[in-house]
């Protein structure tokens, strides 16, 4: 059975396929902004909620129906005057019995039991932190990758990709070849590299793709050098938010938007775009996209794959689009939700 978790501005929803029909359960955590899904080291499902009034917390479930609040990241260990706020959990990443949480204000925490969360100070107290400046989406650590060993990559908006070779003890910027978010020639100092999302090949973790504020890039050496690969996308500056890779097929997906200042599909032609050659060339991903002009977007956490050919994305106007054939054909599911922040495709 295919299950799609949809995290919205007002709760989460569980979409389950029953043949060609879909059932919708929810909202879970009604009234809360649901910002991320993940897996706990013990296999339970995770979700993070947030609120403009009441902060953020993490919840776990064995059955996607009953949810229990568990411990969560916190800046409490810094004392009273640190000035950091735990605005939102942006991502969970689980590997080797540890779950990492990327948060805003930008930081990384990890836990093995969901009760205690250890700050990853190699990133959180990085020597360049004083220069980190938030983008429109806040100063957020939104993607984590690992190689199954000691190497970690963390993507932070308006800062860039930082890589650790020692399990998180130290991090170094890995952005060479990427156009920074702010052009120094325009009179502002370069404040960083505004990476929007990253994806990699788990069989060759040094191959990483990144959707940036200014372009789509690929590296073959773990981020020592990036190559720009958005020349065949329909927008001028390669702007977009999510990038995902289906492991079984190796197919990449992005959702190009017109530009930073006009975050809608080019000409209203809403579609995911895909690449079968590791990003060298791109084309509209399959068929089924709306013929009528559609001015919506897809946020960085709102496209996902089960790595076996099912791809789902949720839009800022609350629609869920699904492909079960690696993006060859797409269907808009019948329900409409609040603005969608996060999508997860589960095989159960």
């Amino acid at each position, binding site marked *: 059975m295919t299950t799609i978790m949809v995290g919205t501005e007002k709760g989460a929803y569980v979409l389950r396929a029953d043949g060609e029909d879909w059932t919708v359960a929810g909202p879970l955590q009604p009234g809360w902004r649901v910002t991320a899904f993940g897996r706990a080291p013990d296999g339970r499902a995770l979700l993070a909620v947030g609120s403009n*009034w009441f902060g953020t917390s993490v919840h776990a479930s064995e059955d996607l129906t009953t949810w229990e609040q568990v411990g969560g990241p916190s800046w409490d260990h810094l004392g009273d005057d640190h000035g950091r706020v*735990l605005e939102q959990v942006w991502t969970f990443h689980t590997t080797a019995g540890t779950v990492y949480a990327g948060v805003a204000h930008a930081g990384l925490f990890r836990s093995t039991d969901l009760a205690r969360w250890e700050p990853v100070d190699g990133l959180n107290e990085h020597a360049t932190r004083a220069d980190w400046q938030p983008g429109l989406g806040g100063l957020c650590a939104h993607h984590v990758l690992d190689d199954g060993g000691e190497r970690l990559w963390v993507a932070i908006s308006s800062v860039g990709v930082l890589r650790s070779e020692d399990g998180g003890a130290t991090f170094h910027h890995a952005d060479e070849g990427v156009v920074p978010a702010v052009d120094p020639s325009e009179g502002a100092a370069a404040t960083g590299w505004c990476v929007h999302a990253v994806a990699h090949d788990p069989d060759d973790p040094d191959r990483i793709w990144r959707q940036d504020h200014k372009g789509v890039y690929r590296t073959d050496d773990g981020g020592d050098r990036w190559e720009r690969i958005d020349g065949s996308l329909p927008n001028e500056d390669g702007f977009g938010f999510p990038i995902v890779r289906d492991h079984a097929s190796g197919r990449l997906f992005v959702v190009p938007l017109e530009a930073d200042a006009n975050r809608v599909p080019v000409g209203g032609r809403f579609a995911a775009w895909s690449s079968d050659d590791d990003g060298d060339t791109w084309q509209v991903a399959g068929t089924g996209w709306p013929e009528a002009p559609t001015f919506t977007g897809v946020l960085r956490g709102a496209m996902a794959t089960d790595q076996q050919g099912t791809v789902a994305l949720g839009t800022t106007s609350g629609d869920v689009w699904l492909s079960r054939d690696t993006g060859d054909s797409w269907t808009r599911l019948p329900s409409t939700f609040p603005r969608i922040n996060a999508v997860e495709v589960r095989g159960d």
Partner: protein
Amino acid sequence: MTEVPVVTVTLPRLVCQATGVPHHVEVAGGTTLEVLDALLERHPGVRPHLLDDAGGLRPNVLCAVDGRRTRLAEAAPVRPGGTMAFVPSVAGG
């Protein structure tokens, strides 16, 4: 021997929904801060939703003791049978 007052603490419904804590909780404490400490000791999941990362009351959460707003910056006495309510600041138009 002086008996420690018991007050009724009211929590925001959104917080109750996320934490599983009842909307009204009876808590013993001689002052507002003692009540808050006792509440958070019994229901630690409430902490991130009422307090900010520096341990202060969240900027968009108000606290009222017997119907009057209090800042919670310093301890104030509570009375037996009194109320202490945490409510969200109003947003909208």
